[in-house]
């Protein structure tokens, strides 16, 4: 099954079947952003509630494929409770992982100094890199979270 198990890791399927933190938050106090993948028409919404520079609550919604839903769900679990700057670091590392060339992935994925170190469960998403059309699915929620930060900054 040509790398399918790399793409659909068990933990990804688990988040897809049982998404965490699905829904909305009241705005204000929360802020909201909408992301859109023009290739497939998928849409995602992200709501975050930030108090004293810490993300105290986050919800996501919309519709998409298993990869985009699971990735958004995992994103909410790892970034909720983090400070804005910690969350930005995680986003940065995640995007680094998504832009790693497939070849480098095979060689050095387990090294502790790789950009994936510290991403925990999110590392399960690294197999997406082998399926370039799906990278946009995996990053949709993350880009939308960044839009929330911009929204916050502009307030």
């Amino acid at each position, binding site marked *: *099954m*040509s*790398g*399918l198990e790399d*793409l*659909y890791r068990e933990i990804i*399927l688990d988040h*897809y*079947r049982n998404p965490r933190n699905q829904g909305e938050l009241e705005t204000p106090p929360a802020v909201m952003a909408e992301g859109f993948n023009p*290739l*497939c*028409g*998928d*849409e995602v919404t992200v709501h975050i509630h930030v108090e004293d520079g810490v993300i105290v609550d986050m919800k996501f919604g919309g*519709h*998409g*494929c*298993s*990869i985009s839903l699971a990735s958004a769900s995992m994103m909410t679990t790892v970034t909720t409770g983090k400070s804005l700057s910690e969350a930005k670091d995680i986003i940065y590392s995640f995007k680094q992982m998504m832009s790693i060339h497939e070849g480098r992935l095979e060689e050095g994925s387990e090294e502790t100094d790789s950009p994936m170190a510290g991403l925990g469960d999110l590392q399960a998403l690294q197999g997406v890199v082998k*399926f370039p059309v*799906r990278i946009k*699915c995996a990053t949709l929620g993350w880009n939308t979270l960044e839009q929330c930060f911009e929204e916050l900054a502009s307030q």
Partner: protein
Amino acid sequence: MSFNVSVLKKDFPLLSREENGEPLIYLDSAATSQKPQKVLDVIDSYYREINANVHRGAYRLAEQATTAMEEAREKVSSFIKSDRSEEIIFTKNATESMNLVARSWGESNLNEGDVVLVSSLEHHANIVPWHQLAESRGIEVRWIPLTESGLFDLTDLDRLLDGVKLVAVSGASNVLGTVPPVRMLADAAHNVGALCLVDASQYVPHRPTDLAELGCDFLAFTGHKMCGPTGIGVLWGRSELLESMPAFLGGGEMILDVTKEGFTTNTIPWKFEAGTPPIAEIVGLGAAVDYLESVGMENVLDHEKTLTSYALQTLSDRFGNDLIIHGPNDVSVRGGVLSMCYQDVHPHDVSQILDSHGVCVRAGHHCAKPLMKLLDVNATVRASLYLYNDESDVDALADALEATGQFFSP
């Protein structure tokens, strides 16, 4: 030539490609068809033996290249039963053909408030050029609604036709398969003094085409969906219309004379073929026409009808309500395009699992976003059949769908 798919499959080298040791199952011919060996050979020998620029050299080689290109025009012309090959204009693809009509005929004939009537299932290529005219000239784009089963709802046709200058519809849908009553629409258009354009991208490759039967004024289609190469499309138009229309692109080939003050245009078809044409692609399209004619378009149509019935039946027997197939059930009004939604598995995920079984289908909006909105989906999984597909391909699709269900079930 009698019709035998297992023999015919061997004409297409790519279909013998294997994926993980299994034969590749190609079910995406609505996006582009595979190419028979003969077409590949003709393109190859064109470059090896007769390549030269056309219409310009007095040497024999250049004459041969010109003859090869103009013979291809004759072939395409007789393939759609046009009796005047100067009515065949070579373009880059169907998209350019429709843009040519919008820019040349539309810009010079349509004014604010004029209406272009399209249907709700059109490809973006038959929507956006009209939206552009709405922006530049203030025309109105009006939509023929669809019935529940994806047929054109023409109950209000008289009202829809009010103020219409052009009816622009698909000959066959690339999403639902629907084959609308083009003749009736062309007649209705003419009755109110309008013209009729048919986007025949999914029509000409799959059934005998007879312009007199269709009754339209413009016909657009694309070479790569009919066993020909990419980069070559066709616009057929009535000669009196083409003659009255201004040139689309300017440059070499399309002129009779150029001075510092201005230019005069060449006669049709060359008036609309500015610059060096895609000669090898044109010659390749001629070979594709030869190939399809040797198989027989009646045979292609019969085969696809039988196979589409088999597919509709097999899929509904095996999946029942788990699988929604959009579009009409009746194969007399639909082609072999099956747009599906499987349980609540996202089309991307379905096509990913199908791919792991060597089955190539398309997932997405198929360049028909207004239709997607109407169907209330973001995307569908689309399997499309052609002359080289058979029941084993449909069975492989069904098996792979079943595996998809198992993969995503909790």
